[in-house]
């Protein structure tokens, strides 16, 4: 900022002073952020819960009641606060299981793309996808949530299990636009390949870990236990 006019070297600030100031500024910043976080946490969580319920109802159409389950090790139980690895089961008015929904995530172009997919245990296929979080380029990457041709991939996306129920028979995969040949392939959006691929990866990972456990305990879930 200032040019020494007397020909002498500019006075050096000691490293200790720099660290002190940076530390002070970081502390102020940290305090401010934590305050804001604490103040908004509840509202954001409420909103996210609402959105999640909306999304679950979207991928399990016609669900009258929704129960949240959690997978822990080899067992499935009704979710309690703090449980991770959740999934959702939707029942019609008569209490019959009509669909399941699970979360799936994979890195997109920017940050994680988080999805909720609906799984129909009868056809063993994914019959709906709802995007929960997508920070990709607006108008391009975000098309995965709006492009009708892309969403048509998820009317009956094959996710059958192997006969021994140990894994998904044909892992879901995204293929180049216009080259979809099999029911477990997702036809990418041309121009939004990275986001499309992320959706495929998310579903492959999500179904790969969740579905085997889920199908093993299908009877328990059907009984609403």
């Amino acid at each position: 900022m200032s040019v020494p006019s007397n020909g002498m070297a500019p006075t050096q600030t000691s490293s200790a002073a720099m660290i002190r100031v940076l530390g002070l500024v970081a502390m102020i910043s940290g305090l401010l952020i934590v305050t804001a976080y604490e103040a908004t946490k509840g509202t954001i969580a409420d909103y996210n819960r609402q959105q999640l319920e909306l999304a679950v109802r979207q991928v399990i159409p016609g669900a009258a009641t929704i129960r949240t389950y959690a997978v822990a090790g080899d067992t499935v139980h009704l979710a309690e606060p703090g449980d991770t690895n959740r999934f959702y089961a939707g029942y019609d008015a008569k209490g019959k299981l009509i669909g399941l929904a699970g979360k799936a995530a994979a890195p997109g172009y920017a940050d994680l793309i988080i999805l909720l997919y609906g799984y129909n245990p009868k056809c063993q296929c994914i019959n709906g996808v709802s995007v929960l979080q997508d920070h990709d380029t607006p108008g391009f990457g975000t098309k995965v949530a709006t492009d009708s041709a892309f969403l048509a991939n998820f009317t009956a996306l094959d996710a059958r299990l192997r006969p021994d129920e140990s894994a998904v028979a044909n892992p879901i995969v995204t293929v180049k636009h216009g080259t979809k040949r099999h029911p477990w392939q997702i036809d990418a959006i041309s121009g939004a390949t990275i986001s499309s691929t992320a959706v495929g990866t998310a579903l492959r990972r999500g179904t790969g870990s969740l579905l085997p456990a889920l199908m093993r305990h299908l009877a328990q879930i059907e009984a609403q236990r």
Partner: protein
Amino acid sequence: MKTTDTTIDFGTFWEGVWKENPVFVMMLGMCPTLAVTSSATNALVMGVSTAFVLVCSGALVSMLRYLIPKEVRIATYIVIIATFVTIVSYVLQAYAPEIYKVLGVFVDLIVVNCIILGRAEAYASKNSVLRSVVNAAGMGAGFTFALLCLGAVREILGSGTLFGVHLFSAHFQPWLVMVLPPGGFFVLGGWLLLFNWLKQRVASAGTLQEETARAQ
């Protein structure tokens, strides 16, 4: 560089709005200007968020201006700016989640909006807190004003609405190009044309008055 002047200068507020308008005159912050102005609501929220960050970071930078060693000043400014951007981001997520979804990454990108760093470096670090706040508020108002100018035109032509309110009958034909990226460029160009033309007219009227005054 120590200033002891503590008087408030409201002239700098209007400078930010008009004579040194960050968008129309300084051509700074073009990325959000072009990217998020597809509707007036988005433009307004983006403008107000940026203004909030401008004012708060200006105040904090000014408060700490004798403390910050010049070697680490940019790093310090960025930390301060990022703090307020994070706060804005939380607040939007909590109270305007739909808009936050649309603005998305552009809220976080306020950190690198050069208007804010520019103000911190060029003004807040050399002026009293009050003056810095007034100056930053002027810049923020100017930025919001410019964004609203773009957002309003693009939303009216591109969707037939303003702040989501339908202005025309159901048969209105939307100009698709206006909500697409090229529309941002067209409208920005149009406003720049108008703005410069106005300024030129004011300037030439000024010189004309001067000349006649001198002739008399």
